């Protein structure tokens, strides 16, 4: 992808983010943080590719570290968000 295309995506997604997030009520701000945190674990995609690198062990090691950290982020983030939101839903 060329740089300008990536920059376009980046800027448009920020506008979308601002529109979406301003509508989240204060009562859900903590789950919003943990949930968006889980989503930022999308780095896992890049981490998987690095950890599967065929040639360099050092690259694989950094990839492995990235996979572990991003997976904690994804699994921990979604699970704890789910736990909190279930409490809001109860009544």
């Amino acid at each position, binding site marked *: 992808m060329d740089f300008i295309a990536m920059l376009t995506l980046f800027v448009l997604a920020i506008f979308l983010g601002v529109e979406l997030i301003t509508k989240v009520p204060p009562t859900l701000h903590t789950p919003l943080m943990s949930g968006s945190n889980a989503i930022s674990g999308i780095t896992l995609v890049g981490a998987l590719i690095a950890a599967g690198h065929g040639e360099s062990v050092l690259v694989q090691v950094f990839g492995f570290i990235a996979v572990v*950290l991003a997976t904690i982020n994804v699994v921990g983030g979604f699970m704890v968000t789910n736990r909190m939101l279930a409490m809001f839903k109860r009544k």
Partner: protein
Amino acid sequence: MPHLADHWLNIAYLIAASLFVFGIKGLTKPRTAVRGNQLAALGMLIACVVTVFHRDIFGYEFIVAGVILGTVIGAVMAIRVQMTSMPQMIALLNGFGGGASFAVATAGYIAGDLVGAVAIISTGAAVLIGAVTTTGSIVAFAKLQELISGKSIGFAGMKFVNALLLLGSLVAIGYLVIEPGNEMVFWALVAAASLLGLMLVLPIGGADMPVVIALLNSYSGVAASAAGFVTGNSALIITGSLVGASGLILTQIMCKAMNRSLTNVLFGVMAEGGVSMSDDEVYQGKVKSSSADEVAMILETAQRVVIVPGFGMAMAQAQHAVRELADTLEKRGTVVEYAIHPVAGRMPGHMNVLLAEAEVSYEKLKDMDTINPTFEQTDVAIVIGANDVTNPMAREDKGSPIYGMPILNVDKARTVVVVKRSLSSGFAGLPNPLFAKDNTLMLFGDGKQAIIDISTALKDA
């Protein structure tokens, strides 16, 4: 394993990004929030599963081991964490997110497949922001967990050193564009950025933690986005900027609620006040200490009660006792609502989560602008573990360092009951004239026990 063509991967990433957007949209209402979170998780699953078939993946040992290890750690953390410790948990997760982006960018650099200025600059940005987020979040975690002092830690000239570190990092990135193979410069960048993260969060005091967590949340998103620029991955770019925007908006909300500018928070300075009153001047002879029985008697005839929770309620784990008191009152026909200040607790929405844990309906949790006009019709306001967010000096005393900060106008209620251990000051370090008002009763003691005592006395009445 067979490999998927790039266009199929990109279509899958588009689906994942759309699911994230639907997911966040779901979070705009408590009713649809659980569903939203599940949709986002589904998006993540799709993105990860298709990536396994990426043509650049040759070995699976590290992937499988990493995913298993991460899943176990993440699941244990999510299941075991207490709701009171949620700020620490979020701080850690921010740090892990930043660390992952940092590690991806570093792996990309070592692999040597960076071609062109854009790739190098994106890598540098991911390393810089990722490392700052990681070490900064670790300091935030340590402060929240009280492993280190919550007070501002710093030395004269710290800002100057930080400016140098940032400048040095930028120069290092610039140098790597000219000479990408220079590993010394790369590792110097890593060291400078890591140090910068520590130095940025150390001077920030406990009261400003909500802002810092929100800001680090934003950074972890931007770091993911930068990693996306490195690998040309649309999923990372879109998602990272969504999260970046989210953190930034929360940061703004928090700053506004404290009447501080982001620069003030980041550099750990409070507004310079004029001559502030001493504790004695404010409290001497004016503070009325009360008992649970007396408070129960006043509550007996109350039509409308507003409960104002603060971080002290979390510390005393009093949220369940508070819910029981509210239940007792409601059975007697009293209307009970909760007033939530945007910076009550140590992160955005912290009080709401605690009260939700105690099964308080979210419809009874009112934000500041909604509840403030109703205090004049309120018979009793019960302040439990909140201090600075109720301080009338913010409204009345132009010389006060907190002047202009929006507060909950609890002093307008007919009677104010303040449950607190002592007259000690809050994070702002100021005396609170609310405690000395004619209509204020102080109930000294442990928050949880005090609330239980009131409930018992009320039931006996």
